[in-house]
């Protein structure tokens, strides 16, 4: 199959270029393996990857215009030449490697940890299966960044808008029956940007490789804010 890959090494290249590769693609081949084959031909090719099964979240990239995880993307279904580019809207460090620091900063901004104010019991904090079910579809996020880097609102305001990944985690803790910081969390999301820059474009839902729905989570946060406001 034919692949057209974004290449840029700031140490040697005056500007980025697209390079064509022809790769033998046995049945069942994932895009990550095709990229490793390119790396065997040219060791200077750089991309992040690790677990190879879609749980570590390292190898997010833009494939034929859509953000995906290379390790769980079958090459067989892709239109040729397969165009592989770094995530849009992020500064490129080299080839497919982008600077994700603003993405991580927005994650940190939502205080993504359980806050408990009551004294801790000597055993577990009890939680009903029904309350635990509310975390399904939220806690599975792997922080790959596919969603936030395909969100036009995040492209425009990555410094002010938390973006879908961080907001999904904001809801993950608001939805947790064990968490005791609801008011602080909601107060921290006020203002025109952090939460309300989401315009329900739903690119995040379309690209999430884990099938999660940040738009719905954002909707739940807005509903909770309204309910608290009344």
């Amino acid at each position: 199959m034919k692949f057209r890959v974004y290449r840029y090494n700031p140490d040697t290249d005056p500007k980025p270029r697209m390079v064509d590769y022809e790769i033998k693609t046995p049945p069942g081949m994932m895009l990550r393996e095709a990229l490793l084959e390119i790396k065997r031909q040219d060791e200077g090719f750089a991309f992040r990857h690790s677990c190879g099964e879609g749980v570590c979240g390292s190898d997010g990239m833009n494939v034929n215009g859509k953000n995906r995880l290379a390790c769980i993307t079958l090459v067989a279904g892709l239109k040729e030449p397969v165009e592989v580019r770094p995530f849009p809207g992020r500064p490129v460090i080299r080839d497919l490697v982008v600077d994700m620091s603003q993405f991580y900063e927005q994650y940190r901004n939502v205080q993504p940890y359980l806050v408990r104010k009551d004294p801790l019991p000597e055993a577990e904090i009890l939680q009903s299966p029904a309350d635990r079910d509310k975390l399904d579809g939220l806690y599975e996020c792997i922080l790959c960044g596919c969603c936030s880097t395909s969100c036009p609102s995040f492209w425009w305001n990555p410094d002010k808008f938390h973006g879908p990944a961080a907001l999904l985690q904001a809801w993950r803790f608001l939805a947790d029956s064990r968490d005791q910081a609801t008011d602080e969390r909601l107060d921290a999301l006020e203002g025109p940007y952090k939460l309300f820059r989401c315009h329900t474009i739903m690119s995040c839902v379309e690209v999430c490789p884990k099938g999660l729905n940040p738009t719905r989570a954002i909707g739940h946060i807005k509903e909770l804010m309204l309910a608290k406001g009344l």
Partner: protein
Amino acid sequence: MTIPRRHFDALIIGAGGAGLNAARRLAGADLRVAVVSKVFPTRSHTVAAQGGVNAALANVLPDNWHWHMFDTVKGSDYLGDQDAIEYMCREAIPTVYELEHAGVPFSRLDTGKIYQRAFGGMSQNFGGEQAARTCAAADRTGHAILHALYQQNLRARTHFFDEFFAIDLLRDDEGYCLGALVLEIETGEPLVIESKTTLIATGGYGQVFRTTTNAYINTGDGMAMALRAGVPLQDMEFYQFHPTGVAGKGMLITEGARGEGGYLINVRGERFMERYAPRALDLASRDVVSRAIASEVREGRGCGEHGDHVLLKLDHLGKDVVGRRLPGIRDICRTFLGLDPAEEPIPVFPTAHYAMGGIPTDRFGRVVAPARHGPEEVVPGLYAAGECACVSVHGANRLGGNSLLDILVFGRAAGTDMLQYLRENPNHRPLPDAALDQAAGRLARWDRKGDGESIATIKAELRKLMEDHCSVFRTREVMAEGLAKLKALRERIEGARLKDHSRTFNTARIEALELDNLMDVGMATLCSALYREESRGAHSRIDFPKRNDAEWMKHSLYQRDGDRMDFKPVRTKPLTVDSFPPKERVY
């Protein structure tokens, strides 16, 4: 060139469960903690752990830590150190509660308590009925734990050096560990991190085998650093092959799949575990199940076109159990095999998974090595925890659900002991320039230009060699041939060259440094496996098929200098209870 220096109270190398649980302990005590990780912390391989973490909470069935201890000692084929095992099984209970308080979204029972499932090698009442001891967050327990620990470290304002690669440890003439030389991957610039204490928590080295459940990053970096710093590696012959990796591909299918009621069949549709483990069946210890599968295939009862695997049947469990309890497994099967495990069986084969051996430590996480006064002298300032360490709680074979437990308990224990050490050693010791020479040399070596073999070629040969010569069943003949080839390959690495010498995010350079590490741990594994002339736990010698307690109930130690083998005794005395003497091991 002067290399910039930073100063910390504690340096933690590796940001998986062990490193992050230690960091959390230390940062919570207001110390200056640096965590160095070659990947962003939530990419660490703890994230891929599926089935759960063992603790005798007794939420589902009666249980206590002493039964857990018995199972772990028996599972270890009596090579585990019983003081450390007692400590781990006692600590398991508060450790899991602490994790729950930290936010881990464990699955729940109707009582609101943590869900616990059946896992291999787990019994009630010292070898009786199957126990339910493995605390689970669906089949994504590692992910749930790693993210919660990272989150709590953010809260504690731990200092993270993300995408920094550790080159080598720094030691002074008196043997103190003074930190490490690291490389910032993005800029390609070296940095010295001086630290009063250093914890190695770099995980495993499954990448030394061709087919593995391990991630690309699992290259034994910390173990090899320890070797180069003069510390031996312990029990490296004991490498676990997980019974159920996806055949030919390697993705892990959790033991929880069998814990939820799945079972294995051969080409005749026989439930063959009945012949190998009449009582425990598919939930026998991992070494037993892996040997059973390998034997079925060797004896011509394998499935598929080439008869090279067996099948794991889950379809009788129904869509609801598969969807609720094993959603990650369902995703893996759909993605990589195009099948739904609620409808079709999964092709599986034993796959390289976990190192029981590693950097020798005591139960406080302190690295111990042979020195003037005996085989277990503490290396001051140096700690290790998690898969890279050998406490030894797993002995010759680890039980499922005990590895998340090990990293959490001993990560925390190391953090606690580091606090104590820092109280007694409050000042930085001077770092002599000479202490940097070896580390800087290792980095400079890959700057050599010119023609030479590629890293990829040597790495591929190494992985094939280890798979062919050091797998589930072993003989002297096959391993000796492997060792000769491995020594030749080690010579060839000298002639290897990088083509790409650029600085910015040079992954080829990182892979070269990783290859050095893989070569060192591969050599340790093969030398240790050839040395041990008995069958125990995961180490199965066809030429020495029996366990031999009289001669071999001892830990092996591999020294890099001269590929020397040595040994030390097993600690059979627990902390407070009676010791479990060796018995024949049947399931």
